[in-house]
């Protein structure tokens, strides 16, 4: 509406001005195409109208979902300002990552001390209730991101920390010592920074500008607690 008021003097052309500057002098304008393609073809992956997915093989379904999850993993590992995580959110990736992390972090059944590491349920609860709390916090502060989009982003950005957990478990197979600890500390710090950068790249734009720090601080606390659990993991 505003743009129409601004450029009300000229006809609505979508082509660049210098190319067709002398067009008004020629009377054969109808032979030269001046319309442009204004619809972006993005129908390729809208599948809710495609009723034939009910008849396809299970392998097709699983591979499609796995490819979507894998594509989002790539977006997390190389964070750019893109909308893929927000537009096509799903919770499979966060579930896979959370279960993997909790399985690797839980204390072994031999070690039944009261003050060992976290149990499977404790890790699971911390990850999911932490993500829900951060989402509620950002919505209460006035952010315009939906509930599940935010859960999706926070869950996918645990990927670097899961990789750190794998690396730490491998490093712990070697002999214990200060070098062992320094290597693990370095890996965890790098992956923690990567998680924060990735989630900030996706979440920061949805917050009002004078409350960005208030919304990002809980994310920092969340990943700090997970990093601490990874760093203090000791195999018994």
């Amino acid at each position, binding site marked *: 509406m505003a743009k129409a008021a601004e450029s009300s003097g000229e006809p609505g052309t979508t082509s660049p001005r210098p190319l067709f500057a002398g067009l008004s002098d020629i009377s054969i304008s109808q032979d030269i195409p001046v319309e442009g393609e204004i619809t972006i073809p993005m129908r390729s992956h809208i599948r809710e109208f495609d009723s034939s997915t009910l008849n396809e093989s299970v392998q097709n379904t699983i591979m499609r979902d796995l490819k979507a999850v894998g594509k989002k993993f790539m977006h997390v590992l190389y964070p750019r300002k893109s909308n893929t995580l927000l537009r096509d959110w799903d919770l499979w990736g966060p579930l896979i990552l959370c279960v993997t992390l909790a399985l690797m972090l839980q204390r072994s059944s031999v070690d039944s001390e009261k*003050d060992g590491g976290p149990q499977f349920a404790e890790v699971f609860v911390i990850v999911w209730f932490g993500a829900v709390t951060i989402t509620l916090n950002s919505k209460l502060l006035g952010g315009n991101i939906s509930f599940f989009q935010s859960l999706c982003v926070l869950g996918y950005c645990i990927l670097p920390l899961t990789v750190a957990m794998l690396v730490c478990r491998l490093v712990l197979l070697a002999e214990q010592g200060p070098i062992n600890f320094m290597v693990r500390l370095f890996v965890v710090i790098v992956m923690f920074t990567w998680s924060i950068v990735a989630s900030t790249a996706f979440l920061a734009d949805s917050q009002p500008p004078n409350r960005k720090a208030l919304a990002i601080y809980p994310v920092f606390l969340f990943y700090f607690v997970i990093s601490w659990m990874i760093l203090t993991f000791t195999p018994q």
Partner: protein
Amino acid sequence: AGPAAAGRRAAQAQRVWATPPEGASEFEEASNLLAETPDAVTTSGSGQLTPQGHVAVAVDSGGSYGAEEEVEESDKTALLQEKQQPGFWTFGYYQSFFDVDTCQVLDRIRGSLLPRPGHNFVRHRLRNRPDLYGPFWICATLAFVLAVTGNLTLVLAQRRDPSIHYSPQFHKVTVAGITIYCYVWLVPLALWGFLQWRKRVRERVGPYTFLETVCVYGYSLFVFIPTVVLWLIPVPWLQWLFGALALALSAASLVFTLWPVVREDTRLVAAVLLSTVVLLHALLATGCKFYFFQPLPLEPLAPPPQATSLPLNLLPPPTPRSQVT
């Protein structure tokens, strides 16, 4: 008249403005048309006779958080302040407790760190607009920092004395969280209830609302976060010094805030209330110090405890531990 009719009238008015006015009557007609349909032309509904100026402003502002739109929003909220507050089952009700900016939260934290006798935290810093963001996240940070630094002291102790058995002690996170959150919710509830009960004795100064009390307690706990980190230094008298300093600052902030409300009451009630508040605060500080930072011996003279669950237990178990089992 629907929006289509309003649009037609607005289009008519615009055409009249574009062509040179041929007479005074058409000029009057145009201004009348514009006066009738202010919403169709302007963006803020103020009904002025300069539509072009308003359209130009809307074009320039662009994106979702332009300054002009913020000014208009604040004008609208100022007009709508007489509106009833939304019910407690709506999301908007809880959103009103998180209506703070970053600089406001930092300002409130600074106010709690430096209490001054004349300055009442509620009146000067909160300006009677309490928020729940500060108390909630300060408590969460304090709970996790307590658990993490408590575990770190065990790491440092193991470095000095390899016979001490290191374990992640994850249950301390649960204990810390429950203790801190219960303190920040139940003690202000009791305090608020007591002040409401004594309301009839005071004439001038009204009591604080429950949320303002929670806010004061939450922000007063902020000073313990750096103190807990400093408790990593394994020098006992330094730890007690830091603890006493933090307790003094925190309790002073509480006392200076409560003093104007309690001053009107009888001297006995005022003294008992303030000393109870300070005592509970001191109990929290010492309880945390003893539970999370158990003093470990510097030389390995004590029998190495490999079979027992906790490395050393020199002190009688404080009350938070009973919540675990």
